[in-house]
Structure formats: C-alpha cells, structure tokens
C-alpha cells in the first residue's frame, strides 16, 4: 500500500466466502497478486462450530480442491456418496416411483461427497493465510467502483481503495459490485423457503443420499460422516415459516414423518437455517475490468446441491482464461478476454439453473397430470442407462468442456 491508501494487486476479488478464496488461491498459485475484500472479519467467517450446513462436493470440485492442495486434508472429513435414491413422497404415505443412481456406473466410480461447510471454509481461509501472494482486506466494505483506464478502482468505506487490472464480483446473489457496474439481474421468485439443518440418527445411512419430492418441495437427506445427516428441504414460504417457528421437539417430529423409520430415532444437531429461495441470473458475467462468479453470476435453487459446484466451475474457467491471457501478455481486464470466460460458462450455468428450476416446478406440484408425467419420466430415466449415466455425469460435474483444474490439472 502506498501513502495514499491505495492497495495495488493484479486481481481484486470482492467476497471472501468460498468462491472468492477458491479463485484467489487458483490465481495466486499461478503467480498472481490477489486482494480479497470481505465485509466480515476472517475469524467470523471461520466459525469452527458445526452449524448444520453442508455441501455436496462433486468429483470435479474435489479435483479442483486437489489442485489447490486442500482435498488431501478435506477428504477424511467428507462422507462419500455411495448411492443416490430419488423418489417422490407425501408425508405419511408410501414412497412413490423410485429412481436409483449407482455411482459405480460413472467411469470415475463416484459422484461426490458431502462435506460440512465449516471444514471447507476453514481450509480455504487457512490456505489464504498461508499464501504470501494473497492480501486479505477485511472487514471492509466496497463503496464505489470505477472500471475505466488501465485498472479497476474499488473504493472502500474506510477511505482506502484497491486498484487491479481485473475486479471479480464473488459477493453473492445480490452482488453489490455487479450492481455498481450496472449489471442487471433477472430474479425468479418461488414462494418457497429452504430449510437447512443436520440430524443425528440411531441407524447408519450407508452413504446413501436420499432426495424425495414432496408437494411442498424437495427434501434431501445427505449423509455426513458417522450417524449424522444434513437435511436440505424446501416448503412453500408460509409452511416453512410455521416449521421454522416450531420448537425443536415438534420440528424433529416433522422431519421424522418425512424420513420414515429408515434411520431409527433422530435428534437435531447444530443450528436451524431458513433461506428464502429464488433464482437470480446476471444478464452478463463479463464487463470491462469486471467478471462475475458464483452466486453473483447465478444464484440457483439448492435442489441438487449444485450452487457451490457451479461456483467452482466458474473459478476453474475464469482462472484458466485469465492465466492463459496473461501468459500471452494480454490485458486480463479487457472485455474480449473476459468474454471468453462468459462464453465458456454462461450457457452451462443457465442450462443448469433452468433445469433445476424446471425440476423443482415439476416436482413441487400435486397436479395429477404432472405427477403422471414425472412418474413416467423417473421410470424412463431409471430404465435407460445412458440417460441415467448422463444425469450422473452432470451431477459429478464431468459433463461439458471441462476447465483444466476440474480435471485435476494445474494451470
């Protein structure tokens, strides 16, 4: 930093959650100086207690974390998914059509893992601390931004400013930095609220992930190490508010009714979370000297646990585009460079977001015609090997033109 409070870096990233740090590490490993700005101080973000949140880490994401040197430490903390069961259900009724995915059908032999949020967050933050090319600026708020000239300039509320050839908005689904650049976004409301919490149970889950589609929305039971599972479910907002307000014992009864006797007795573990669900898509992922990544580009329904995996795909594609451009001497903030990233990611992310949206609408519905259609669809997908394997390759993050880091190769 010079005397005027100007901090210089090659790349400035707004957002120090998961996607920002993953991108910062990817670029720093290739020799870039990176500044990461977050509103929250690091100890707040690195909260060590289990809070009930977890991610489905796709194989491709694990490969990226491997390139960053983090997966070796994370894998023992993650629960491999040995099987995926998809069904439709109604509280208290027998499960309807059942679709079964055997991860051994993919060439890699697995689809992914379930990993607690706190472990992933801590690993990323610790790796940033240990990386001399990363400068963390937190707590700090980006107040204004200018994108003309040879560097983007982000002004912070405390009077300092950060200048870099490229700024990246990884600041979440309401991205303030994206808004400052005039990038509009489409928001599709669902009148649904996501409920997230974890449970302990008496019987083992055998590594099976269950996704059931109830009329109010999908209900996923994701296996954690030991006799614990992470629940991700959504309900119409009024019903979700009622559930969220219930005392723990009555809330536990609601969960038990949805899971059935499969896991034996269950108890709550960690905190209970409620998130209003909406789908937000930025109209552009690239502008002069600015790229959008993660939820800032595409905030998706958490139905298939793809939000974090899509964000890491952004990271791998953006890092590869930027590193290759820099090695050719190109201006990494030039629009034509950043449009390569946009072309690579936008179609994929939009297709994925709309696919999950359609899946959610199809399944969150008691209409008998739609029920008939989806029963038929589930049965067909289940019967046709290639369709099922295609679905699993998508879930494992192995479909499409893969950036190198997702294939486990360094840049």
């Amino acid at each position, binding site marked *: 930093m010079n005397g005027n409070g100007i901090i210089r870096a090659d790349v400035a990233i707004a957002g120090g959650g998961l996607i920002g740090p993953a991108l910062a590490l990817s670029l720093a490993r290739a*020799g*870039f100086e990176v500044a990461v700005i977050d509103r929250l101080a690091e100890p707040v973000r690195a909260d060590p207690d289990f809070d009930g949140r977890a991610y489905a880490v796709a194989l491709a994401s694990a490969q990226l974390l491997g390139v960053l040197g983090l997966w070796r430490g994370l894998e023992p903390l993650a629960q491999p998914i040995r099987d995926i069961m998809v069904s439709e259900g109604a509280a208290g009724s027998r499960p309807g059509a059942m679709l079964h995915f055997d991860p051994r059908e993919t060439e890699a032999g697995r689809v992914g893992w379930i990993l607690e949020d706190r472990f992933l967050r801590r690993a990323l933050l610790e790796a940033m601390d240990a990386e001399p090319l990363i400068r963390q600026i937190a707590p700090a708020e980006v107040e204004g931004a200018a994108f003309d*000239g*040879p560097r983007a300039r982000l002004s912070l509320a405390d009077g300092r400013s950060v200048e870099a050839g490229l700024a990246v908005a990884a600041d979440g689904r309401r991205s303030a930095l994206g808004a400052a650049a005039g990038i509009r976004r489409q928001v599709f409301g669902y009148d649904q609220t996501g409920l997230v919490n974890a449970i302990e149970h008496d019987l083992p889950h055998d590594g099976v992930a269950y996704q059931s589609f109830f009329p109010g929305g999908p209900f996923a039971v994701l296996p954690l190490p030991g006799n614990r599972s992470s629940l991700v479910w959504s309900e119409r907002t009024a019903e979700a508010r009622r559930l969220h307000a219930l005392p723990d014992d009555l809330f536990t009864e609601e969960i038990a009714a949805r899971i059935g006797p499969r896991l034996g007795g269950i108890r709550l573990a960690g905190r209970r979370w409620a998130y209003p669900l909406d789908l937000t898509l930025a109209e552009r992922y690239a502008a002069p000297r600015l790229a959008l990544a993660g939820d800032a580009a595409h905030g998706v329904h958490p139905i298939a646990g793809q939000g974090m995996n899509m964000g890491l795909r952004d990271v791998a594609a953006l890092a590869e585009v930027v590193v290759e451009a820099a*090695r*050719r*001497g*190109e*201006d990494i903030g*030039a629009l034509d460079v950043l449009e390569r990233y946009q072309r690579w990611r936008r179609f994929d992310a939009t297709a994925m977001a709309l696919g999950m949206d359609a899946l959610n609408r199809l399944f969150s519905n008691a209409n008998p015609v739609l029920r008939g259609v989806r029963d038929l669809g589930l049965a067909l997908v289940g019967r046709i090997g290639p369709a099922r394997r295609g679905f699993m390759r998508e879930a494992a993050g192995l479909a499409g033109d893969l950036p190198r880091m997702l294939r486990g190769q360094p840049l």
Partner: protein
Amino acid sequence: MAQGASVDSAEVAKFEAIADEWWDPNGKFRPLHMLNPCRLGYAVDQIAAQHGRDPAARRPFEGLSILDIGCGGGLLAEPMARLGARVTGVDPAERNIPVARIHAARMELDIDYRVSTAEALVEAGESFDAVLNMEVVEHVPDPQAYLDACSALVKPGGIMICSTINRNPKSYMMAIVGAEQVMRWLPRGTHDWRKFITPDELFDMIGKSGLTPVDRKGFQFNPLTWSWRVSERDLSVNYVTAAVRPAVA
C-alpha cells in the same frame, strides 16, 4: 495523457477516436482481435523457447528487445511490453503511430513507437532479440528485399516470427471472397491474392535472407466456436513461421 503545446487538440481527439476503434474487439479491427490470442500464443512460445525463458513466469521477456513491424494500433506491441520486453513498434502509416502512443500511455506501458520501416532501421544499424513480422509480407511490392531487411534486424541468437496467407484456391475463397466480399471483415482490396505466398516459397525466401527457418504452423478458423487455433497440419490459408539467426560461436 501527456501532450505537448505543439499538438493540435483536434488532432489528438481524432487520434483518440481512432485508438478506441483499433482497440474495440467488436469494431473495425475485429478480425485482428479474433486472431490475436492465437498469433500471440505462437509468438510467445517461440520467443520463450529460443531465448530459454519460462512462459509461465509473470514477465518472461525481461531484458529482451522486440521489434513489431507494421505495429498498427499496438495489438502485438502492448502484450510484448506487458511480458517485460523493451518494445519498438514501427509503422509506415503516419496516423497509426500517435494512435498507438495514445493507447500505450492509457495502459501505462512504455513502448518506443516510430513512423519508420524495416529498411530504415537497417540503415540506422539497429537489431533486436526478436522481430515480429505479422501479416505484412503479403502487402509489400518486393517480398525478398523486404525479408532481407527484416532478417538483418535479427541479432545473432535471435528469432523472427513471420505470418502471412497461403496462395491456393481455398485461400482465395477464404481471404478474398469470404473475408472481404461476404463477411466484410476486411475492406475490399485489402489483399491481392496474387501476392499471397506459399509456405515453401516463404521458407525459401527467409533462407535466402540469411535466417534458418525452424517451424511452421497453420492458423485455423473454427466457425463453430468462432475462434482461431494453431494447427500442426493445416497451413492452407493463414500460417506462421519461425526462423532464427544462429548465435555466433
């Protein structure tokens, strides 16, 4: 931007507008912007290999002198400067040089731009570690005399990268009918097909000029991805060569 008292401000405004035009990836020079990553990638790899530099380093060309002949708005010169080289850019078109200077100043890059030609630099006794000779040879009246001059500018142990367009029915269809008449990427009359040069002819002329040709590759346009890539085998339209001057023992 610095400007002397002698510079007419209307002139400066005109050049600024032209600079914006040169550097607009979707503007008048779109074909060059589309080809640029591909030809830069080739040039960087070849120069790095010839001079034993690590292309993954942040400024691999630190300490190297590079000449860009026919520099235009600086689409090749600026990247070379960013990679650490001391860059000289020459163009005989007088209005290109102030345009290139304005843009380099905006990007805070230090590049020596001059209204000049390869022949004039030879007369001044200058020489460089690498010479970029991209999409020029098909426009000059006497290619052998021009290549002799370019070659004289390469230091012992140095390298010249030379790209141009092949002469065959396909290149006529692509470069003249396609690029000029159908797509209108280039103004009509930009190229005269009779002046196109085959890779063998170019290798032969470069050899006669005193350099040793060491590599040739194609630049291949993929209409599906709308982008260019380096091709090992397809030199049928756009192609590029590398030639070196042996180091003195």
